[in-house]
């Protein structure tokens, strides 16, 4: 067991740090620290251009195998890449759903044809993806999906509705869980379809969030189509594939997220210094606790990622979502408490709603404990799968 990095790792760190320094300049300079949660609208086209720029330089798909066009970086390099990217203030990645979720799912469960068809577009930054899981009646109870797809000739024809679909309004593709077997319910009879977003059978309606912005949407499927071969896994195996995708949410990219958290914590500490709240013993306790908690988040992620993949998910993996989500939500509140009365004041004039990054942090982190499995669902999963306690009763 060793936490320190080798000289070779440090050389790689210098390489990516230098690349970020040399490339987050000129037209891209304004993207520094922009486009994160709550700020998704900032410079979208420019961030997309930066994603393509990264793709050309080989900095997308860092952890993907070489055989599918990735960099095939070992774990230590993936950790370093994501940390240095965030340390340099790298902008929110417009391609993160493709790189982090769709791509790994296709690599794990897709056919060779699908890999050839879809992976290059993700790596180049040309194809953006969104996740079509949740529906009005399928939130925590995801298996209650009602969106239907039926095979008509060589096309899947899809009818139904998704909701809370992040970035659907800018995405080229969506991975959709749909019911493909009439009369089934629950986990059975679901399929995992890859659906192009730019077609007349799909209507995207933005939903305004409490932040005033809208990064998620309602997506209506009204005779929408996709080619018969655009199914990952066999018909009826959609649940298995969908669960595989959720597992990728625990990947190395969480390390980058943590470095972004670090930047936020540093900003809050700097404010406490400027306004004197750093003298308040309670605030000091909370800032120290947040600092310690973030170090532990990193250690926990490294512990989970360092384990060779086994048949059983280690316990530290089961607790990681509940942990980071709760930590981050607490940080949002701490930011407000450090700011005191000034926390309330937004830029702009009365009647406008243009929030500061820390106000966005405070509001947006309320969703961290909801999306990707609520805290309550996480606790159910930990209790049932990691601790072997009885399962919840179902209606």
């Amino acid at each position, binding site marked *: 067991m060793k936490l*320190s990095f080798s000289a070779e790792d440090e050389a790689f760190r210098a390489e990516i740090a230098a690349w970020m320094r040399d490339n987050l300049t000129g037209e891209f300079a304004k993207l520094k620290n922009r486009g994160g949660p709550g700020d998704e609208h900032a410079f979208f086209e420019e961030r997309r251009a930066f994603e393509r720029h990264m793709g050309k330089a080989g900095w997308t798909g860092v952890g993907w195998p070489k055989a599918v066009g990735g960099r095939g970086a070992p774990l230590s390099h993936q950790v370093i890449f994501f940390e240095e990217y965030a340390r340099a203030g790298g902008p929110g990645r417009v391609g993160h759903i493709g790189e982090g979720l769709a791509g790994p799912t296709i690599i794990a469960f897709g056919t060779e044809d699908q890999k050839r068809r879809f992976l290059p577009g993700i790596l180049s930054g040309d194809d953006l993806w969104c996740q079509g899981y949740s529906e009005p009646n399928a939130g925590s109870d995801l298996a209650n999906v009602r969106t239907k797809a039926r095979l008509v000739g060589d096309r899947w024809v899809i009818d139904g509705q998704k909701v809370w679909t992040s970035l659907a309004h800018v995405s080229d593709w969506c991975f959709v869980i749909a019911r493909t077997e009439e009369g089934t319910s629950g986990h059975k009879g679901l399929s995992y379809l890859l659906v192009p977003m730019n077609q007349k059978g799909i209507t995207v309606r933005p939903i305004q969030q409490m932040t005033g912005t809208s990064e998620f949407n309602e997506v209506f499927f009204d005779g929408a189509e996709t080619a018969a071969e655009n199914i990952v896994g066999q018909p009826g195996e959609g649940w298995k594939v969908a669960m595989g995708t959720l597992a990728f949410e625990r990947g190395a990219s969480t390390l980058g997220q943590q470095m972004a958290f670090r930047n936020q914590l540093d900003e809050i500490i700097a404010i406490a*210094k400027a*306004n*004197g709240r750093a003298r308040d013993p309670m605030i000091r306790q909370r*800032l120290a606790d947040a600092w310690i908690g973030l*170090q532990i988040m990193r250690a926990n992620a490294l512990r989970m990622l*360092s384990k060779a993949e086994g048949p059983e998910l280690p316990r530290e993996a089961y607790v990681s979502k509940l942990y980071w989500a709760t930590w981050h939500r607490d940080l949002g509140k701490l930011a407000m408490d450090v700011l005191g009365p000034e926390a309330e004041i937004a830029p702009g004039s009365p009647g406008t709603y243009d929030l500061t990054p820390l106000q966005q942090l405070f509001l947006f982190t309320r969703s961290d404990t909801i999306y990707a499995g609520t805290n309550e669902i996480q606790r159910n999963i930990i209790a049932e799968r990691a601790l072997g306690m009885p399962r919840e009763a179902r209606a």
Partner: protein
Amino acid sequence: MNFAFTEDQILIRDSARGWLGDFAPASHVRQVMATAEGYDRALWAEVAAMGWTGLIVPEDLGGSGLGFVELAILCEEMGRRLYPSPFEATVVLAANALLAVGTDRILDRIATGEITATLGAANATGKVTAVRNGDAYHLDGVLRHVPDGARADLILVAAELDGRTALFAVDGAAPGLTREGLASMDQTRRPAELRFEAAILPASSLVSADAGTALATALDRAAAMTAAHAVGAAEQCLEMTVEYTKGRVQFGRPVAGFQAVKHQCADMALAVETARSAAYWAACVADDMGHNGDGTELALAASGAKAWCSRAYFDCAATAIQLHGGVGFTWEYDVHLYFKNARAIEAVLGDPASHRERVAGLIGLDELAEAAQ
């Protein structure tokens, strides 16, 4: 970077877990904690024979020359069983401190198990001063809360000498030293009060005339090991609770099926796993010290881990009592042993609030406060 145990480390863990499970079950703990001595000498001899007392002692002094990750593994497993023994005082405190000051003395005798030892420094309350008097030193002062202070063969004492912190090795039977074992709420631990009243020590008892920095390092490493103890013990609280609630039937079903119970167990699992990550982080930094020598990094990791793990342990022990219901409040069930130990562990080597305050200073909040004036 590889933050997983090596095969050797897994071997150490598995054999320690197996041995402690066989020889230090709760019945053993209950039996020895009710005696004046507080531990079983025959079992302790086996601990030494297995090489555990020499784990971090260099090989040329008869030890295994292993590091703080391996020591953390043993501490975690002993914590799981609340194994009452002189291990913490002798190895985690004394051997660790001797290594930190860079002496070869005494370590060989600790490795073989010939002597037990302890440390009375900033881990204890009170103060001792030393003056040189010809060929001897005179020590005066009182130290309280010295772990194993009354039963250890040898006591390493930090004393102020010429404005510096010196380290002395004092024989338990030294003239002018009175040792009083203190009864404690957590019966698995044996704190003591040591009174030095013109205690006269030979010149050779001075181990280091300037040990301040080394002792700070040693205490940070000890805090990291205490964090590991807390992890093992907290996990045991979780395991006992899951086990018990699965078997306890109310309203026609196991209480483990109630979501309020499940969610509290999930929170315990979260506490245990994050604490484990914290303790291993601190243990790794303790090992890396030799490479970068940066005391700040160790101070942050040790304080962070101690604050986090001891709170996690207390929370788990408290939840364990709650979820056991009435039997959790009985002497018969083991939960109270952990609850009491959790309280003690919070306080030893600095309580969580004081460690967080230390972290606050180290991450720059003091300068920050000045900047705002």
